[in-house]
Structures are given as structure tokens and as C-alpha cells.
């Protein structure tokens, strides 16, 4: 079972990270800002086992995976071949909805050590969006109740 959740562009814009560079600023490219995400939910228990992020530009996930910190559950991130943006997240053990902000915090925490600017900024944004996951979707006043968890 899967559920699509669309991001509110205004809420996303509020969370865009900016980094100072020589004579200016760098931020997430519009093509690295997710339009919506898909939660992969196990229909038996309602737990989330993966999250897919959807962007414009048609980039597909490469073989390269990033393992985010040694925390529990393990987070495996599948990145775009070119930009390194997060396209898919898989968890070693299914998570509950309440754990999503914690996952976001871990992604955000891992971001500063990423060298490539586009990958780093995308991880920061995705981390922030998951940390505030109950505030960033369109026409959702409260977190979706999908049963279980």
C-alpha cells in the first residue's frame, strides 16, 4: 500500500536552506525540491518501510546508496545519479509515523558532512521537511491517520 502526500510550495520555501558563497548564496535548485512523497506502508501493520521523493527533471536513482549514521533503524538513501538528491529512503525496520521527525533530524544531522553542495542542500531540505512533516503538506491540517502504527 502507498500514499502520496504533496508538499505545500510556500511551506517548502520557508524551509529552503541557504549557504554563503563568494559574493552570494547557494540554495537548493528547483529541480532538487521535492513535489511530493510516497509512503510505502505495510497494509498488515500500517508501518512505513520506505519513502519515495518525486521531483521534476526525471532523474533516476543510481546504485549508490548512503547509509545515514549508525542509528536505529538504519536509513538507506538512494540518491540521484547526477545531483545526489534523495530519491528513496528505506528503513532496516519499519517505522511508525511518530518516528518520521526523528528520521528527518538524522538526515539533517548527516547533511553537513556531505561534500557535494547540491546533495548537501537537498539532504538539509528533506531533513527539515520530515522534521516538520505534519506542517508541510497541502490541505492537511493534521497528520494523516492511515491506521496502525
Amino acid at each position, binding site marked *: 500500500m502507498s500514499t502520496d502526500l504533496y508538499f505545500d510550495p510556500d511551506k517548502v520555501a520557508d524551509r529552503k536552506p541557504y549557504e554563503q558563497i563568494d559574493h552570494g548564496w547557494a540554495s537548493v535548485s528547483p529541480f532538487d525540491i521535492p513535489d511530493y512523497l510516497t509512503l510505502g506502508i505495510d497494509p498488515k501493520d500500517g508501518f512505513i518501510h520506505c519513502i519515495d521523493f518525486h521531483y521534476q*527533471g526525471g532523474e533516476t536513482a543510481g546504485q549508490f546508496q548512503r547509509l545515514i549514521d549508525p542509528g536505529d533503524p538504519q536509513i538507506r538513501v538512494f540518491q540521484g545519479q547526477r545531483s545526489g538528491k534523495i530519491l528513496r529512503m528505506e528503513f532496516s525496520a519499519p517505522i511508525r509515523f511518530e518516528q518520521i521527525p526523528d528520521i528527518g533530524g538524522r538526515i539533517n544531522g548527516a547533511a553537513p558532512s556531505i561534500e557535494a553542495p547540491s546533495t548537501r542542500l537537498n539532504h538539509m531540505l528533506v531533513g527539515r521537511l520530515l522534521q516538520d512533516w505534519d506542517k508541510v503538506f497541502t490541505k492537511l491540517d493534521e497528520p494523516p491517520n492511515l491506521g496502525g502504527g
Partner: protein
Amino acid sequence: MSKQTHWLLSATAWYCVKFAGALSAAGLAASAIYAKGDGISSWIPGLGMTTIIAVAEFSGKRIDEKEKAIRVATDRKAAEAIAKAEARSDQIARQIVTGIIKQLRIRFFEFGDAPIHKTEDRITLFVCRERVDNGVVKKRLEIFARAGAYADSTCSWDVSDNESDECRGIAGKIWLKGTQIFQEAACEYPKDDDLGKKLQYAESLGISVAEAERLRLKSISFTGFQCMTGGDCWGVILVDSKRKNQILQPETPESPKTKQEKTRFREQEKLLKQYADILCLACEGIEL
């Protein structure tokens, strides 16, 4: 075999191979075996047969050559028609994309009562093209469509996926970093020959003084990002202006923004995201 027969045989063999083909040469050889060198009269049936074969082969060759000539002419015409159709479709694609970025330019730069400046506010879509230079593949950003001043410019910027020094100008920097970039020149380009200012201006934009001198519009503020299609980087979208505060920079504690500036900054960001989505789809079908 007499000397006469030898000459006749050699001459006939040469003509057979040159004008007819291997089959008539083989016929000639067969008639030589048949005649066993018993004088000229014994050659007549063999030579007669060889002549018939040679004439047939010669005619066949002529027909093949004619067909080949027709095929070449048809292929050339088809290639010309394809090239013409491709040029036309490229022209149409440029017109469509130019229309999109013209609309973006108006919406991006017009705010409240402040009108857009005809010559100082601009948006350019660069396309990345590859060429082989001394066996090395080089990439270059060329203008695909432009809304604003010098739309017919042939200006282009070198880029590289590996070497930052080979990425020229703001467009090159955007290509290299893969992020959205907001940038302001360190100073306005001097109207006099102040080399210090020229150097300051050029260095802040990642170009040489000579390159800065060649720029016809000496813009001071910029923003832009890579244009992605089909999972690959197609080119770069660059917004530039010669006017201050037309392309707003993010707010910092050192440079707080007014409420109006914050609203405008947010609007500009949203527009760029919307038009990035449109351009991504528009450029997807354009073959490079």
C-alpha cells in the same frame, strides 16, 4: 599457342575483367581449356559464348550503376529534407522556449508599480553542447533562448564536469555546483578605465577582465540554476540585471529585508520553481 592467339586471348581477358566481370573472364578460361591451343578456329565457339556473357555482364553493370546513382540522389534529397525539418523544429522549439522565458521575465521583474526595464533585466536559457577538441570532449554553454537585451548574442561559456577553473562566469559556476545561485558583482563595472574596479568586477563573476570587457550588458545581480530534463543536465537558466535590488538575495541578520522585499523574494522563488517545471517539460523533446 601462336603469338596471335596469345595476344587475342590476353586482350579479350583484359576487356572482360574491366568492362564485364569475373564470369566472362571465367568463360574465357573455360574456352581456352576447351580449345587446348588447336588454332584460332577452335577458339570461335568459346569466344562467341564469352562475348555473349561479357555483353550481358556489361549491361548488368550499367543498370547497377544507374540504380546506384538514383539511390545516392534520393538519399541526398532525403538527408536534405531531414536536415531542413530538423532546423525548422529547432526554430519552433526556440520560439516556444523564448515565449516561456519572456513571460517569466515579465512576471519576475515586474513588481507592484515598478515596471520592467527593457534593456537591463534579462533571462537566458543556455544549452550545453559538446565538441571534440584535439580528441578531448569539451562542453560549452551556448545561448538557446533569451528574453531581454542582446537576444541575438553568440556569447558562450566553457564548462567542465571535473575542473572548476574551466567553468567560466556565473553560468559556469551554476553548472559546476548544481545548486541555485544568488550572486552580486563586487561593484558596478566602471565607466572609465579604472582597471582596479574592472578586475574587482570580473573576479567576483569568475571571469577575466577581457571577458568582462566583451560583455555588452554589465549586469550586477544574478540568479540561476541547472535545467534538468530526462535525468540529465540540459543547460542553465540565468536571470541577470544591471539594476540593484531587482534579483533579491536571501535575508541575513546583517541585511534584514522589509516586508515588501520578503514578499517579493518569496514570489520570485516560487516563479522560478514553477517555470523550471515548465521549461523542463518544454526542453525534454528538443534534440541536441
